[in-house]
């Protein structure tokens, strides 16, 4: 058992996949730990779905290796790999009942009938669809169909469950519910999940590890809070919502802090980072919610205090998205100020403001 735990459940080694005119997967290396939810996150066309299909065996790779439980799977067809896919369109067999759908994989393995019945019953309980065995997919709601698709794949006890944007077709509220459901199911069953999505919030909610992909390449992999708080590249920072990106170079260090000068001449303070050379740093990013509004009489002494003018305010319920141009350099910052603060509600476009963020909130970017 110990041996199995230490081998990654799924491994991609230098995997390359080409389609006519496009390099879909560009020398990707990754390891997926046993029993965890691993998410491939990225915009459309970044190669995440292709990578998933390569693991499933629905596409053949051009270079590299794919391993499941340490065994090379390159030439093995999908019906002999020990993984199961939940498709974006769900692909439930319309001419079979819920029971028939879930039992399909077991029947292909020539499992004896009583075992099939047992397995199906357990699955229905697990996903919360008891009593729905005889229904047809057309008689189910979106969320229910979702669960049948998951049950159908899980009943086979695959080594890894592959999910291709499974919640994309659901409305917002249902999506959030299903995210919780999926995480619960995974916890109960303990099977490794390889999840693909373009929705950052979804990835943050559900994953143990997130790997961000872009144009076929893997840009960064890590825990959700890592990816969110310390994205390494401008692309990832922007993708995760840290829309305030200031390019610049380190001009001074000291006191555990770094001072960067942006291309426009702004001086920004960040915390010194062990393990990254100062000349590797290309800028900083700041999340909008980390920018604070200071009373206009507070002075400019201190790190990262800037004067600016409010350009636009968009009410978003719990926060107000505020666009501010900095007086010194004209840069545009986006801040999310909490709408419960009186100071914030009294603001209006055209007014002068004083904004600030702590050096801790400056995330250093490497590319």
């Amino acid at each position, binding site marked *: 058992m110990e041996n199995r735990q230490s081998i990654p459940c799924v491994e991609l080694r230098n995997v390359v996949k080409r389609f006519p005119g496009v390099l879909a997967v560009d020398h990707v290396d990754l390891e997926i730990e046993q029993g965890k939810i691993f998410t491939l996150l990225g915009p459309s066309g970044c190669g995440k779905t292709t990578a998933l299909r390569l693991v499933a065996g629905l596409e053949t790779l051009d270079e590299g290796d794919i391993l499941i439980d340490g065994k090379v799977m390159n030439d093995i*067809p*999908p019906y002999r790999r020990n993984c*199961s896919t939940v*498709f974006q369109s769900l*692909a439930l067999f319309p001419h079979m009942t819920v029971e028939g759908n879930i039992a*399909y994989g077991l029947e*292909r*393995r020539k499992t004896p009938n009583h075992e099939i019945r047992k397995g199906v019953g357990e699955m229905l309980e697990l996903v919360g669809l008891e009593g729905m065995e005889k229904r047809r997919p057309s008689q189910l709601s979106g969320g229910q169909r979702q669960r049948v698709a998951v049950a159908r*794949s899980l009943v086979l006890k695959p080594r890894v469950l592959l999910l291709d944007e499974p919640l994309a077709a659901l409305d917002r509220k249902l999506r959030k519910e299903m995210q919780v459901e999926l995480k619960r199911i995974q916890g109960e069953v303990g099977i490794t999940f390889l999840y693909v999505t373009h929705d950052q919030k979804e990835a943050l909610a559900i994953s143990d590890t997130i790997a961000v992909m872009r144009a076929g390449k893997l840009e960064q992999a890590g825990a959700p809070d890592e990816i969110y708080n310390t994205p390494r590249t401008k692309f990832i920072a922007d993708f995760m919502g840290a829309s305030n990106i200031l390019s610049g170079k380190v001009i001074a260090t000291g006191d555990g802090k770094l001072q960067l000068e942006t291309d426009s001449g702004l001086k920004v303070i960040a915390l010194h980072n062990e393990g990254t050379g100062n000349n590797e740093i290309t800028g900083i990013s700041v999340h909008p919610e980390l920018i604070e509004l200071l009373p206009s009489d507070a002075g400019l002494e201190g790190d990262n205090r800037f004067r600016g003018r409010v350009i636009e305010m968009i009410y978003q319920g719990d926060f107000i998205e505020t666009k501010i141009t900095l007086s010194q350099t004209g840069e545009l910052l986006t801040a999310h100020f909490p709408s419960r603060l009186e100071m914030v509600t009294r603001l209006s476009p055209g007014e002068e403001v004083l904004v600030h963020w702590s050096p801790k909130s400056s995330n250093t970017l490497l590319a």
Partner: protein
Amino acid sequence: MKAGKIADIIQRLGVILVYVVLWMPIVILVILSFSSHAIGLRWQGFTLQWYVQVLNTPKAMEALKNSLFVSTVATVISTIGGTLAAYGLYKYKFRGRSALRMSVLLPITIPYVVTAATLLIFFTQVIRIPMGYITIIIAHITFSAPLAVFIVLGRMARVDWTLEEASADLGADKLTTWRKVIVPVLLPAIMISAALIFPWSFNDFTITYFVAGVGTMTLPIYIFSLMQYCRTPVVINAISSVFVVLPIIGLLLVTFLQRKETT
């Protein structure tokens, strides 16, 4: 809105007129098939004697059997071949794909006589097989397979083909996927093809005439011979009512299948 009302009535009358003209000849034939008077309009009494006579005519029964045989074989082969071809044309891109699509259309876009005549030439001059039920079946398949191809092709575009991938993903090989997923999903289109091809083949005369040899007797050929050589071909009336009832049944069948397809 008097004028509008009048226009409306005229339109309705027009529609009724068309249907009356279209159906009248056949309906009269059917009615006459129950009349005990041989010809003419004089009604001398309701009778089923013509139907009985048909049933007692060995030649007619023989022709019926042959027609059923030929049409069934042609329908089965056309539907199977057509479904496979539709699958291949839809899913794969290959050299000659558009050429194949165009040439499959050919038998039904040129006048039937031409295709029938070319087959006649082919059978007698090139491969020299005796004209008989085989040649009729071949001719019928040549005309019906295109229909099956395009009906199934139309359905293929509306199917979610990740179903195939799901089936493979869950452990089924290609043959099993065909059996358990593809055929059930395509079934409505396959059945509609069969429902269209069978009556067409059963009723066909113009093509069968060309490729039937001496002595091969399908029902339409039998009817034609009655028409040509019989002074008072009264039994034709009886036979024709059967020919009218069958399509109606066929249509009901197809509407039922269409309903199933839309679920």
